[in-house]
């Protein structure tokens, strides 16, 4: 099995005619994803690699079942596109857009999604892949590259970095460990789904046997995961990789993602490692160690 998406998941792409979105559409189709439509206001009637383009989401949802939507619209239009998808009953939104939506807008999107019973992944993420079944977003790149890095299997991967989601999955694949689902959760200060919020999905998936996470300084998400693990007596061993250890000496400086800044002691890599260890989570010193730790924890 897998979490969030599988071979039957249907989704649309909002902003489908943008340059990056056109490539992404091709990559998803090549991978076998069920892309049932695209939306770009004012471009209705065209098509992108055979995927029909509409002016509004409703034109698609009124005709057929749509499980999810990938949002690749410019930053200024993210909130509107998200509200449109949510209002039309779409329950899984992957927000790829990077850099701009201010926290206030992300908070609004998440709050509205809660009202609608929908889940948000991102913003500032590369999406979700359930290897061999479907991918929703640019994660892994062209299908040939994706097949090289990802294989079906039993490891759940969650990463604050889209690139590192693929790097880690690739190192697992090379060592013979496939993935049940890899989720690029996004690099912003506020994201739709944190590690701890996705854990129940992996916990409920019998095919997932272990979890690998990629984490960074900044924000309370790792501490939240540690608390979740302690409170829920999880069956899943977790292996974490913590990047950005050098940042501990540089408070107030932002590196990498928008959410990656050390503002207080709880934001530092060393404090996060302490909390993760304390919850029984193994912390790898480098990526190459991850498969070895997975093997140890599974035996």
């Amino acid at each position: 099995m897998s979490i969030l998406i599988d071979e039957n998941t249907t989704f649309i792409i909002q902003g489908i005619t943008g340059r990056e979105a056109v490539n992404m559409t091709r990559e998803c189709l090549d991978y076998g994803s069920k892309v049932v439509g695209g939306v770009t206001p004012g471009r209705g009637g065209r098509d992108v690699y055979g995927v029909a383009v509409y002016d509004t989401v409703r034109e698609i949802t009124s005709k057929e079942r749509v499980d999810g939507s990938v949002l690749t619209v410019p930053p200024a239009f993210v909130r509107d596109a998200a509200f449109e998808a949510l209002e039309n009953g779409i329950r899984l939104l992957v927000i790829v857009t990077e850099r701009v939506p201010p926290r206030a807008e992300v908070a609004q999107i998440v709050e509205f999604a809660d009202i609608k019973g929908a889940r948000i992944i991102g913003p500032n993420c590369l999406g979700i892949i359930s290897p061999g079944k479907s991918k929703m977003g640019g994660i892994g790149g062209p299908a040939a590259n994706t097949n090289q890095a990802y294989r079906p299997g039993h490891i759940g991967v969650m990463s604050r970095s889209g690139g590192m989601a693929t790097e880690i999955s690739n190192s697992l694949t090379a060592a013979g460990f496939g993935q049940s689902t890899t989720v690029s959760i996004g690099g912003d200060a506020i994201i739709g789904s944190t590690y701890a919020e996705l854990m129940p999905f992996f916990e409920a998936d019998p095919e997932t046997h272990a979890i690998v996470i990629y984490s960074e300084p900044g924000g309370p998400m790792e501490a939240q995961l540690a608390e979740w693990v302690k409170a829920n007596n999880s069956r899943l061993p977790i292996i974490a990789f913590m990047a950005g250890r050098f940042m501990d000496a540089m408070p107030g400086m932002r590196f990498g993602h928008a959410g990656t800044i050390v503002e207080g002691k709880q934001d530092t890599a060393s404090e996060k490692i302490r909390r993760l260890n304390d919850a029984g989570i193994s912390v790898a010193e480098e990526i190459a160690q991850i498969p070895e730790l997975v093997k140890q924890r599974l035996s």
Partner: protein
Amino acid sequence: MRFYEFECKLLLAKQGVPLPHGGTANNPEQARQLAAELRGPVVLKSQVLSGGRMKAGGVKFADTPEEAANAAAEILELPIRDQLPVCVSVEAKAAVAKEYYLGVTYDALAKKPVMIFSDMGGIDIEQVAEEHPGHVAKQHFSTLIPYTDFRAKELLASLGITGGELTALTGVATKLVRLFQQYDMTLAEINPLGKLEDGSFVVLDCHLDMEDEARERHQAVLDELGIKPDETRQGRPPTEFEIRGAQVDAVDHRGVAGRVVEFDGNLGLVIGAGGGSLTIFDAVQKYGGKPANYCEIGGNPSVNKAMELTKLILSKPGVDKIAVIMNVVSNTRADIVARGVIKGVVESGHDPAQKISIFRIPGSWEADAFKILGKYGVEYCDRSVSMSEAARRAVEKTGT
């Protein structure tokens, strides 16, 4: 993006939050004049982007204009955490009866803004929360429904605030929320909020942080405050190298290839993307390497951008070699980066085979990249070599 205290106070004043009388001085003479106009004891505060000003000696009291001028002279020459103040504030010393705390920020787990109130102001709110949890009240609020007075009243009343105090504090709280929302702040904090002996309230100190991504949409108010677009307002002011990096990034809109942070080592880093850069930088340090810079390339930058970044790094004195390392790439094309980096090395008058210690960008278009790199005799590797191992090889070749 952090604001100086005097800027915060200008923004609060626009919302109608009561402030002490006073202004800012750039020299002792101006401080003397301000103190004379205020006709009484004053407090002078160093305007730096750093907390802990009191401890560092950046806050002084003066009873006469003469004392104020002397205090200003000392403060203006006193660096705090390596920063010299941009000016000194001179304000009437308020007769404070009690100090409170009011703050608004985002809770990344609740994914909502949260208002925090304490009747123990003047110290760090986290310390109060730890040592006196009964004196801190928190309240998350909706971003979809407008924030109105009753919410503030509920929060304040939960700590026993009542009577005229409740009305006055409610006014300050709702204005603070308005400021927080109107300008896309990530933190809006009044600490302490002073209750004067006559029962009125006045902001004694405050702290505002605006979301970096929101700067453009608030250009008008930033202009009004005289804040230039290239003021990063990070932990320290940007170096010349970092400013030039930002210019490289602005060359065109394709991808990212110029956000650099300067270090003083001998190994130039052309690394990416967001998470990959953090991982590689750690690895270089772990193997004893001395990075000359941090950077993050990604989003498929143009040949031109990669070239300009390479030239910038090679122009930095003391850089012996560069390492080009990324995680497995999906949308950035390895061949485009390879072409840009080689062009940058050649145009800087160096031999790519000598200057590039290693090239490790596996993923899209890697075969084309390998072809180009092979032609120039540059050492490269594919995904079978880990990022960490690539960093180790780069350090070994470059020396420490």
